[in-house]
């Protein structure tokens, strides 16, 4: 291995987190979290607001000291050698923190300076990064002139200025419109095909579904489940879902639905019916007047809700 990363079960591990604990006052935000990310993976850390995702990332970067556990990032112990480890890591933060006083190019150049990268290397790298981010025509534009999507893409380009082995993204597409999100996803897929390793937190299940090769669902600071999206779905959720809407949904659910579905959950005026085979449900619903329904395969959102519950997190 060229970079001293450790091998577990024959795989080159880029980030290893073992038994991570972090407490704020009496509240333990992260409670014994363990996961590993192998080179070339896109690992999705999923969890509701307040589950401990951002705290976990800040611990990995060495910005806060954990109360317990071990972290090894790009082969180096964190927090002891966190600063050295960050030389080989790129970060896309949850909230944009581009420098508003600089142009697009200057933002990349100044940020490269924080890594001690020389001017010639930067001048060679920046046009390629702008091309990658779809900002080639905006090289000299001010930050205030950029749309939200452009800013995110520039932040992604900035995170690549040091050609990192590991890219850490904290909710990279929160607040973006669908077009802008797809552009970010395309960019991330491109990076994966180049062999980069990605750690991504999100609460968008479609984002995780499209990008992540492996997922961990965390809640209340502990890992609830971790595997590939397909295996997680197979293990935890019935393959078919029928959503029943409308005023009559609750009555129908109580009188009929509960007897037919393997599992049924009510949320507001929608009944979510889970089954291995949806035919009996559909046959029954076809006879009912005044109920609308949608039949679809189970997805990560169903998994997420099953594992973390339906109650609102603020």
């Amino acid at each position, binding site marked *: 291995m060229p970079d001293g990363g450790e091998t577990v079960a024959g795989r080159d591990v880029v980030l290893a987190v073992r038994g991570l604990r972090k407490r704020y006052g009496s509240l333990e935000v992260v409670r014994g979290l363990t996961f590993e990310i192998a080179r070339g993976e896109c690992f999705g850390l999923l969890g509701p607001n307040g589950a401990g995702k951002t705290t976990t990332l800040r611990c990995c970067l060495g*910005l806060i000291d954990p109360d317990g556990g071990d972290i090894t990032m790009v082969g180096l112990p964190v927090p002891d050698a966190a600063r050295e480890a960050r*030389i080989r890591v790129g*970060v896309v*933060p949850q909230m944009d*923190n581009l*420098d508003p006083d600089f142009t697009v190019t200057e933002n990349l150049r100044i*940020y490269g300076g924080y890594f*001690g990268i020389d001017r010639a290397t930067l001048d060679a790298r920046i046009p390629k990064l702008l091309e990658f981010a779809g900002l080639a025509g905006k090289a000299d534009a001010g930050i205030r002139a950029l749309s939200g999507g452009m800013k995110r893409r520039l932040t992604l380009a*900035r995170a690549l200025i040091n050609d990192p082995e590991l890219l850490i993204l904290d909710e990279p597409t929160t607040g973006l419109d669908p077009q802008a999100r797809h552009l970010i996803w395309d960019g991330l897929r491109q990076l994966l095909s180049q062999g980069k390793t990605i750690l991504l937190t999100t609460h968008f299940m479609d984002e995780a579904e499209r990008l992540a090769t492996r997922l961990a669902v965390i809640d209340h600071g502990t890992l609830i489940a971790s595997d590939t999206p397909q295996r997680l779905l197979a293990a935890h959720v019935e393959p078919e879902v029928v959503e029943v809407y409308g005023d009559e949904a609750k009555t129908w659910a109580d009188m009929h639905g509960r007897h037919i579905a393997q599992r049924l959950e009510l949320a507001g005026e929608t009944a979510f019916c889970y089954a291995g085979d949806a035919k009996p449900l559909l046959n029954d619903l076809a006879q009912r007047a005044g109920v609308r329904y949608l039949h679809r395969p189970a997805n990560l959102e169903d998994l997420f809700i099953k594992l973390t519950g339906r109650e609102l997190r603020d």
Partner: protein
Amino acid sequence: MTTATQKLVRPPELSLRFFPVWRRNLLVWRKLAIASVLGNIADPLLYMLALGYGLGSFIGDVGGMPYIAFIGTGMVCQSAMFTASFEGMYSAFSRMHVQRTWEGIINAPIALDDVMFAEWVWAASKAVLSTAAILAVIATLGFGHTWLALWILPLGFLVGLCFGAFGLVMNALAPGYDFFTYFFTLVLTPMLLLSGVYFPVEQMPAWLASVANALPLKHAIDLARPLMMARIPGDIVLHIVVLVAYAVAAYYVALVLTRRRLLK
């Protein structure tokens, strides 16, 4: 003491990594340099002209120098104080809290200690810039034509370190920009009126003069006035020790408070 507290109060970690962060601030300043320098000069220049010529015509010489030179020297020190305080408070707060610039920097291989050191040195650098601008104005008005006056530039840096650090303490505690008003009311205004910017400290009653002796700005002015008149100041070591002590102590407090605020 818990290890977390030990880590919070550990001595400052100094390295040359502060330089790219300091340079970033310089590059932003360069974009707005002319406006910034004019802003630095305009206020003290008005005071100097109005009070120096207006009031000066009544009172003649003060402390062995024309009143306009007397107040001009005071203005140099005052301007270094204001510039550095402003940079340590409003500008640092923008970069830390509003723009989240610091957050971006500490995701790179730069530690918060490096960022703080850069901000501190930058506040002092800006104090030197405004010191230089006002010295140039004074020279244009026909005063301070002596090489010794150039020593006021490093003095401006020292004043900048002192008040930049005070500003950074406020920054570490500030919930918002409004908080900085306290510093103006409780620290800068008394400092301005008691340190001998407008009139000699010796004019005040003994008890008030002894309060003034505890103020860093007074020690800066005691160094600046003789230099402006081509004289070697007395008690050089004492004045410098007081300024350095204030600067270093305040910086350490600012660093610990900022670590507590951001690294948790």
